[in-house]
């Protein structure tokens, strides 16, 4: 009897404490893409400093994990580099894509005798298909007139783990090189015809650095941090362009943004457009049943696409174009929390 009374009191006390804590902080959890994770972590920490009652916990477990999480609603939001496929959309229920920033994938190499490198999509595909095996191949020579190329064997480095980076890179090759589309295709992991796999951007970076004659693809951030050389790629308009944030912005400006934001901006038209670029997305439910969390999340996203954008460029992500931000504002007003459009009357 006394025991049960004690238990009851303890339960009451515990419940009260839990309620009190819940009133103090709103804990939002998210999971997904690793590519924007450094920027997201900075955002969540900055936002928490400005709004101490809102704490956002993000797990960078990969886009696939993020999609799984939001489909099963085990997280409050997901994050993915590639937009969801029709099949995934059907499973995920009412999900809204919100673009946050854009990024670029670059081609890097380690051959001290090659100081700069220009590549057309056909040549790049040829290298990653295993058809071009030495640095002085005629196809590379054709893209780089006047350059003296060594006879070193080429070795290809690619990602071994499934990744958004691979998805963007293979999406570009599938669009720009018909042979790639036919033989390999696009996806987070593909059946590589040649080369060695390494885990993560840092793994590929390490492998390229350690192997003379190697060539690989990594995110712009990694190439810049490690001072790796980056190739100029021939874009849709036939110009060779270096990977820059302006080039990414030009690529985004050239495509028409559909209503659900699910768009690929690889191989975009435009003189300055850099061809291997992509939006990265947050995935949020169109109607969030949890009033507190849902409202806080939408307010955070509003901050991210406005105040948060200034953090993007210093970390090698391209900020969203103005037109897209305006569109996102309109979308945020339509998103519901507990059946109500909570941001409808905000500015």
């Amino acid at each position, binding site marked *: 009897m006394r025991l049960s009374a004690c238990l009851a009191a303890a339960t009451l006390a515990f419940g009260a404490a839990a309620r009190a804590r819940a009133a103090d902080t709103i804990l939002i959890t998210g999971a997904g893409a690793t590519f924007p994770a450094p920027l997201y972590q900075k955002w969540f920490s900055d936002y928490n400093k400005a709004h101490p009652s809102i704490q956002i916990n993000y797990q960078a477990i990969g886009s696939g994990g993020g*999609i799984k999480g939001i489909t099963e609603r085990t997280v409050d939001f997901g994050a993915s580099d590639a937009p969801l496929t029709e099949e995934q959309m059907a499973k995920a229920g009412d999900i809204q894509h919100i673009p946050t920033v854009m990024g670029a994938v670059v081609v890097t190499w380690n051959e001290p005798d090659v100081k700069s490198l220009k590549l057309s999509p056909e040549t790049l595909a040829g290298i990653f298909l295993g058809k071009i095996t030495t640095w002085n191949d005629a196809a590379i020579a054709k893209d780089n007139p006047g350059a003296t190329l060594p006879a070193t064997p080429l070795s290809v480095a690619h990602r071994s*783990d499934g990744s958004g980076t691979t998805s963007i890179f293979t999406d570009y090759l599938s669009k720009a090189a018909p042979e790639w589309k036919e033989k390999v295709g696009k996806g987070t992991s593909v*059946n590589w015809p040649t080369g060695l796999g390494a*885990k993560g951007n840092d793994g590929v970076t390490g492998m390229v650095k350690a192997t003379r004659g190697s060539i690989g693809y990594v995110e712009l951030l990694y190439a810049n941090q490690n001072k790796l050389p980056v190739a100029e790629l021939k874009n849709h308009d036939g110009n060779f362009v270096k990977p820059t944030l302006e080039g990414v912005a030009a690529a985004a400006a050239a495509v028409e943004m559909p209503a659900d934001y699910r768009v690929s901006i690889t191989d975009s038209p435009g003189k300055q457009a850099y061809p291997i670029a992509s939006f990265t997305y947050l995935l949020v439910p169109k109607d969030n049943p949890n009033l507190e969390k849902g409202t806080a999340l939408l307010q955070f996203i509003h901050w991210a696409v406005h105040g948060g954008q200034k953090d993007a460029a210093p970390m090698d992500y391209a900020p969203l174009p103005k037109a897209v931000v305006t569109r996102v504002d309109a979308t945020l007003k339509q998103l519901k929390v507990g059946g109500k459009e909570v941001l409808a009357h905000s500015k």
Partner: protein
Amino acid sequence: MLRGLGAEIVVPGRRLADRLWGIGLTALGGAVLVVAGLIVLQLTRLSAPVLHQAGLLSFVTSKKWDVVNDTFGAAAYVYGTLVTSTVALLFAMPVAVGLALFLTEMTKPQFRPIIAFPLELLAGIPSVVYGLWGLFVLVPVLRDPIEPFLARTLGFLPFFKGPPIGLGFLAAGVILAIMILPTITAISIEVLRTVPGSLREAALALGATRWEAIRVAVLPYARTGIIGGIILGLGRALGETMAVTMVIGNAPQISASLFAPGYSLPAVIANEFAEASGALHTGALAALGLLLFGVTLLLNAAARLLVRVATGGAKRVAA
């Protein structure tokens, strides 16, 4: 007579508390089976779409793994797992057993900790550290001079052909050998210490040399235990993920050459699972897990059979 006595002791013991204790222990023991069963059940359930599409046999024998076109075959991964584990055992077994014999038979007991302590330390190093060491120290050394040397001297064998990349089956095998060395050595030492001194003395008294005493008296007595240690080491080698994926090259191909890059079952599961979408890809990875489970089970069973045959043989000789 003795049996009757035993029964008398057991009967008064059958009180409620003892019975409950017995039931509790049985339940705990059974829990192991339940957990293993649930794992198999869940893996089978997940992998059903792939096994249904391709059939178990073609899944195991096909080596084409193409996520984009939903074609899945596990042969290259099974091959990589078996080859790296075999290489690891070939390197680790003689060293480990030799080390154990040296420590128990040849040195004074007070010197044992000098080697035993670093050995235990070796067992405690996280596998990712082994992987990093492999990538930055072992692989460059293999690339030049070890692999070119092997190609020059033993290049007529199919195992030592092809360009020396450094990353590949050989690198993974060597890393695994180092990782399983402490396991096999530690168990072998414990087993060798249980060999009764009288056996050695008897052999020596019959005029055997030290090596003959080890070969005739010590090793046959300890054989079962040493094989048990090797099985445990093999289990670790089969399931090792992180260190292997960092040095094996992650290219799903089957090549007789140890210089060639390959892939292993646990490595591909770890690499692709986070980004796997769609029932087929997830299913194929679950099927690989099931396969790994199966390979481990088969090898364990084979090793146990070996032990039984070996010890049975010993008894026949003794008789």
